[in-house]
């Protein structure tokens, strides 16, 4: 355990089990500092969660599902933002729309399809694999293969050239000729 972790652990133990203290942290401290530490820890996760517009979720699982889904959807107005993060007016409307569809018991795929029907595949950050997106999906692999082919051809050609060169050099040394 690192010293810091040991200290934190000791402090935590001291906080949680006041009567049962380890030797290292036997000195009594005011509990407020530990308390503040715990409180900050407890709420640190919440600051990352969005508080743009609170929606009446049924339970935490639904909220997680909502966050997950809206993170996969693109805001049409500020196109480098997802629906979860965007502050655009339309993004808020669409979040409410997604929320409403969820309340109706629609699955994630149905909700995505609902938006694709209106805004095309553009709303999906993860475009589906289909003929029009083949180049997008497999293009990088294609370029990699092309590069690989070029490298292979070059290496082979250089190898052959080097062999011919060395033969020429050998001949030249035998004939005691000067370099060009």
């Amino acid at each position, binding site marked *: 355990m690192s010293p810091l972790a040991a200290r934190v652990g000791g402090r935590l133990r001291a906080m949680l089990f006041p009567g049962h203290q380890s030797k290292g942290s036997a000195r009594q401290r005011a509990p407020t500092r530990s308390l503040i530490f715990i409180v900050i820890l407890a709420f640190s996760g919440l600051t990352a969660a969005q508080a743009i517009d609170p929606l009446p979720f049924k339970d935490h699982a639904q909220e997680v599902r909502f966050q997950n889904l809206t993170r996969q959807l693109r805001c049409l107005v500020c196109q480098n933002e997802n629906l979860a993060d965007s502050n655009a*007016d339309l993004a808020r409307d669409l979040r409410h729309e997604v929320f409403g569809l969820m309340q109706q018991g629609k699955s994630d795929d149905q909700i995505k399809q609902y938006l694709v029907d209106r805004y*095309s595949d553009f709303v999906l950050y993860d475009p589906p694999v289909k003929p029009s997106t083949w180049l997008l999906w497999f293009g990088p692999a294609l370029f990699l293969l092309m590069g690989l082919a070029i490298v292979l051809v070059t290496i082979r*050609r250089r190898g052959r050239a080097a062999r011919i060169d060395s033969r020429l050099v050998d001949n030249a040394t035998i004939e005691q000729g000067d370099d060009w």
Partner: protein
Amino acid sequence: MTRSLPLIGFLLLVGLFGFGIWWNTRHDPREVPSPLIGKPAPAFVLPLLDDPGRTVSKASMLGKPYLVNVFASWCVACGEEHPVLMAQGRDLGVPLVGYDYKDAPEDARAWLADHGNPYTMVIADQPGRTAIDFGVYGAPESFLIDAKGLIRYKHIGPFTPEIIERELKPLIARLKQETP
């Protein structure tokens, strides 16, 4: 040959770069393609801006092609488009339906009073719920809907006289031939 290989590679990259620039001047990479082209327009029932007691629905608009122009008083690009619509809106040969998007009705009325009203009628979608069904993600956007209620064309961004001449007018002419 091998010596000029780097040059050839370089020129290929320059070509690719040039193509990218050329492509991006003709296509807005932020433009979201509408999956609704050729599909039935979503059903809508929206109040008239000037007479909120009366509503306009998709069903009530069937039988004649019409152009829906999504605008809002808060939308800067709509201000750029507005003079074009003022000049040409009445000569399109189809009703021009204003679609006031996420706007306070009094703001929209004041805006139209200030800048002039090129619209045959104006419907108001203050919550923006119906706009989601249309795949609207900003203003201005325009939809050409045919007599059977199919979306035949969508333009994202302000209309310019060139776009009206090149894209809109030929299509309107064709739609008018389809519906005697």
